[in-house]
């Protein structure tokens, strides 16, 4: 058991090293000279040369890479070329925003996806099943950014019910914080809800057909009890695992949603940094997202083992 987890962690190390290389190369791929962007309207050659020197842009790539990794290992992610704020501060500022968005999206996804999944599994082949399936597929098929724009148009511009953009930290003004996050969280949550619904449905179908549930039914237990107490409990395992995986994906999926709703989180930070050629920010934030993703995968794997008694024994 413990050795399995250890092995899992050890495997994550080369992955992390590769991620760091990819992240580093990613920004080197970007065309355009960051120094020109930094210089802006004024382009004094002397200043350009100085900046290039300052940000070590003249060093060989490999030197730049080791310099960067060395600093990152000491917790120094460098400084934003655009605002001179430390990248670590930016990450600390933005992470809670995106996590709040992801958690709220997750709540939406659970509230919609799981009941719909159970319902459509229990009523398999009925109209309810088809409708639930259709809604789930719609959630998967609708482009996030379009849904966002349409909601802004309808709810904010036409009806004036919710703010069209912005962010307020939860601790500063909880009501407003939730108000500003409802639409983006919903948009982000739809695709997830669909995925969850489909997985819940198939997990439930599998369990409902098992001998175990058939026995429970044969014993004369009432339908609802069977579904909730026996079937769902067994179907919950793959759902939990999946949720951990989805959470990792959410962090990445927030990119466009944050852009549309002007939410100052990770996604917006990355996109703006890419367009501004803010190398240090691109590197730091993408690295963080990737590490988060790997962590969530690790957690999913470990959870799977912990929650599955059979797996536990076999290890």
């Amino acid at each position, binding site marked *: 058991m413990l050795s399995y987890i250890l092995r899992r962690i050890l495997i994550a190390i080369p992955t992390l090293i590769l991620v760091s290389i990819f992240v580093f190369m*990613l920004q080197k*791929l970007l*065309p355009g000279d960051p120094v020109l962007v930094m210089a802006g309207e004024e382009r004094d050659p002397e200043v350009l040369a100085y900046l290039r020197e300052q940000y070590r842009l003249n060093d060989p790539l490999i030197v730049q890479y080791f310099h960067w990794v060395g600093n990152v290992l000491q917790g120094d992610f460098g400084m934003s070329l655009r605002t001179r704020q430390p990248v670590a501060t930016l990450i600390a500022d933005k992470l809670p925003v995106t996590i709040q968005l992801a958690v709220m999206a997750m709540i939406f996804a659970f509230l919609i996806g799981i009941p719909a999944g159970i319902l459509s599994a229990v009523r398999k082949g009925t109209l309810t099943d088809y409708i639930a399936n259709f809604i789930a*597929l719609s959630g998967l098929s609708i*482009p996030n950014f*379009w849904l966002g724009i*349409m909601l802004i148009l309808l709810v904010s511009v036409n009806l004036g019910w919710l703010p069209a953009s912005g962010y307020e930290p939860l601790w500063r003004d909880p009501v407003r914080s939730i108000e500003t996050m409802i639409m983006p969280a919903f948009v982000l949550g739809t695709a997830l809800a669909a995925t969850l619904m489909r997985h819940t449905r198939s997990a439930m*179908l599998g369990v409902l057909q098992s001998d175990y549930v058939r026995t429970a039914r044969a014993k004369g237990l009432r339908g609802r009890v069977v579904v909730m107490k026996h079937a769902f409990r067994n179907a919950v395992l793959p759902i939990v695992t999946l949720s951990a995986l989805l959470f990792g994906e959410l962090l990445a999926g927030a990119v466009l949603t944050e852009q549309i709703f002007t939410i100052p989180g990770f996604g917006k930070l990355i996109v703006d940094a890419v367009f501004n050629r803010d190398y240090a920010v*691109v590197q730091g934030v993408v690295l963080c997202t990737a590490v988060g993703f790997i962590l969530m*995968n690790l957690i999913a794997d470990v959870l799977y083992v912990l929650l599955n008694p059979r797996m536990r024994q076999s290890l």
Partner: protein
Amino acid sequence: MSVTAVAVPARSRSRAWRKLRANRAALVGAVLVAFFVAIAVMAPILPIPDPAATDWGKIRLAPSTQHWLGTDEIGRDILSRMIWGARASLLAGVVSVAIAVLIGVPFGLIAGYFGGWVDSVIARATDALLAMPFLIMAIALAAFLGPSLTNAMIAIGLSAVPIFIRLTRGQVLAVKTEDYVEGARAIGLGHLAIMTAYILPNVIPPILVQATLTVATAIIAEASLSFLGLGQQPPSPSWGSMLNTAKNFLSQAPWMAVWPGAAIFLVVMGFNLMGDGLRDALDPREH
């Protein structure tokens, strides 16, 4: 999306085909896709105005009998742009997935078949690539290659490669210990022959399912990139770039935003329905 791993022996193919035809949802999907493919192919011969023809006198007109879907910010017919835009979307979906399959499947085959350090290297690289946010990868690649539809397709295709490596590898691992593969090895067939003749056919069905579903994702990805200005270039239309422009005229001309979004939704829905149908048809288990 995870795909149920199944090896389908050839004799069950006809059964799969029967099941697929009986699946009404898949049929709807196929009809949707066929519809968009048809209008995309027929775009040059349809009696519609030039999608790039501007008319200063007809800016942002609401839908009417003359312009069924209205006109855009420089007086072009939106219906015509939608039809031509279907080409960009479908092409982007199919080509980028083709790129991903052509690169991903061989790597997956090699990793799964040979195992050992080759497998470890490919598997770790795949893990690492999967950990990078998909859209960010695509944005960076598209920015690197320069904004154009072709480059957007390459960017999306490359970003989707790890999905196919991982899927293929898993399939190969499931198949390679089967008796018939062992048998082929026993009679001394070469690696390449075993991979292409004995393993690949069993890998194809789930790849097919995944590819269909990835086309759906790729179409959305192309729209997203075009929405960010990194896809199709003007004056050629694409649904994503139409949305990008429409965003500025939401309150004055909401129809500009409605049509492209609805079209993306329908075509993606079509591919998803088809993918689901294929999956069910190829699944030997009966629910």
